[in-house]
């Protein structure tokens, strides 16, 4: 059994519901064990075909001890192995903190290898900025480091509520490339503001009220002035509302007052701060105004989804995938204001 398969075994063991079987029943069923071995062999075989995923996983080093990997601006596909979010790590005197781990075990593994090329210090923290699969499914690659998994106070519950569906979708969309990806719950919950000590360097972790999701964290590296925004900031990629539109806008108002030397958005590259968040603010403000207008006119949801537009001149990426979804979420939130 290869490494990916061993991890897959562990992952599947955590999610017996996917198989419609309880752990007890499959553990005691020789036929199933045999089938599992066969499936593992198939994965090994197919991964021999797809070769080592992410052969050129790039890491940038914008400031001493700060490392960033910029994911592709795309949906998760087998070709990109779920490497679509921005990830990275900060190295202190004592240990390393990882900020988001990517959309699959393979991405998490690539990130871990990148850390090992830079330092041999242990990984003491793995911070997830929020629950979305492109930010959390690489967590399993850090299990051997036994770090503290840090998340928003709501993250554990969100993973319970959404995780099984995310795993299903990941397996559906990525197949064998998703092998080893697993739900890893936070072992440390952040309810407001906290500092994490890396030895001679500390990270300020802040839990936000419902905005992009109902469990967003930002991470500020005080030594370098680097602010990791998670998906509270999208650049290029259309912003996604999966928490509260009004909450998202008020988080942006507050973020704009924060001073930082550089910021790392959840998706895309930020040139200057806070200018980098202006297009997102414009998009969301227009969404708010247009959905309110649709509601005031008595437009039903289905028609609002098709009718509420956005400024094409902004040339958002993935707008065809996320704009209608944003209209839906905004409508469902704002209709109670009427």
């Amino acid at each position: 059994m290869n490494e990916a398969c061993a991890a897959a075994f562990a992952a599947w063991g955590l999610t017996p519901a996917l198989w419609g079987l309880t752990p007890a029943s499959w553990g005691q069923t020789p036929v199933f064990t045999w089938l599992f071995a066969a499936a593992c062999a198939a994965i090994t075989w197919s991964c021999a075909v797809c070769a080592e995923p992410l052969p050129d996983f790039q890491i940038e080093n914008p400031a001493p001890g700060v490392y960033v990997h910029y994911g592709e601006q795309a949906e998760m596909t087998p070709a990109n192995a779920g490497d679509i979010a921005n990830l990275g790590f900060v190295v202190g005197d004592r240990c390393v903190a990882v900020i988001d781990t990517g959309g699959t075990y393979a991405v998490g593994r690539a990130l871990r290898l990148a850390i090992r090329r830079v330092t041999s210090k242990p990984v003491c923290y793995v911070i997830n900025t929020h629950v979305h699969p492109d930010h959390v499914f690489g967590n399993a690659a850090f299990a051997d480091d036994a770090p503290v998994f840090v998340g928003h106070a709501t993250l554990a519950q969100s993973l319970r509520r959404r995780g099984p569906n995310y795993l299903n979708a990941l397996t559906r969309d990525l197949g064998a490339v998703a092998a080893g990806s697993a739900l890893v719950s936070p072992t440390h919950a952040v309810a407001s503001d906290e500092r994490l000590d890396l030895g001679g360097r500390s990270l300020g972790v802040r839990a936000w009220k419902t905005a992009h999701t109902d469990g967003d964290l930002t991470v500020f590296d005080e030594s370098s002035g680097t602010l990791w925004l998670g998906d509270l900031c999208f650049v290029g990629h259309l912003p996604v509302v999966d928490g509260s539109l009004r909450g998202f806008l008020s988080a942006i108002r507050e973020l704009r007052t924060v001073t930082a030397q550089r910021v790392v958005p959840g998706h895309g590259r930020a040139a200057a701060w806070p200018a980098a968040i202006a297009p997102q603010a414009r998009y969301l403000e227009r969404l708010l105004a247009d959905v309110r207008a649709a509601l005031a006119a008595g437009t039903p949801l289905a028609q609002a989804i098709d009718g509420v537009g956005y400024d094409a001149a902004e040339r958002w990426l993935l707008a065809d995938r996320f704009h209608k979804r944003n209209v839906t979420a905004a409508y469902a939130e704002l209709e109670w204001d009427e």
Partner: protein
Amino acid sequence: MSSRVLSAVLALWLATSAVSRAQDNDAAANPIWQRLHAQLFGGAPISVGDSVVALETPTRAEDAAIVPVAMRAQFAQTKERYIDKLWLIIDDNPSPIAAVFQFTPSSGRADIETRVRIEQYTHVRAIALVSDGTLHMATNYVKASGGCSAPAGKDAVAARAHLGDMRLRVYDAPAAGRAALVQLMISHPNDSGLAMDQLTRNYAPPHFVRSVEVRHGANLVMSATVDFSISENPNFRFYFVPGDAGELEAKVVDNQNLAFTASVKLDSPRVGAVSAPR
């Protein structure tokens, strides 16, 4: 493992996935539907098409938690001929029978707009029982959304804070004999309880709206038995024919037997709210 065994396993795997793809494209052959057909309708013949009820869904569930669905009757309700019941079925959801709506001639039109959760690629069905005893079905295939869209709600804490708030609104100026559009909004998490706690292996208790009943005076306008395939904050748009003035009243009961009511006076203000668990 020998390559021969491996090939056999792969062949079996490919064969079964080919079979399931074929079934996806054939609404009638879906085993879940076949079971429901027997269970709900005793296998009775059902005519297929949209001459009695038309079904409107998006082809892709943009947001898995909130997928708008409309079932539209193709004729007005009369005492002579009316739609008695409408079933909304989502084959591949954990609980496929999303809702069963009951209408009367006072409903005016047996139309329903609501929002549902879509867990995966699935057939969605609207099935009408007409007062003459015939059954009619319209079917759409809905693709599930991308990997970060989940059927769970957006903000679990906020959902609980407003539990039981309701809005009942009549859109059209009530005119005797003409069907008026009504919207009923219910603030409720409508939780499936299907999310398992990975540590304790316990399931959260389900908490969802079970029944909805809307009356105009003594007349039943619409009643429904629903479950957690209906989205968080259940929302229904439907019609009724105002007779005399008076009140339109909605009563909602959830699976924990909490009851919520809302009403709207039909002469002057047309937006009603106010409710409290009883």
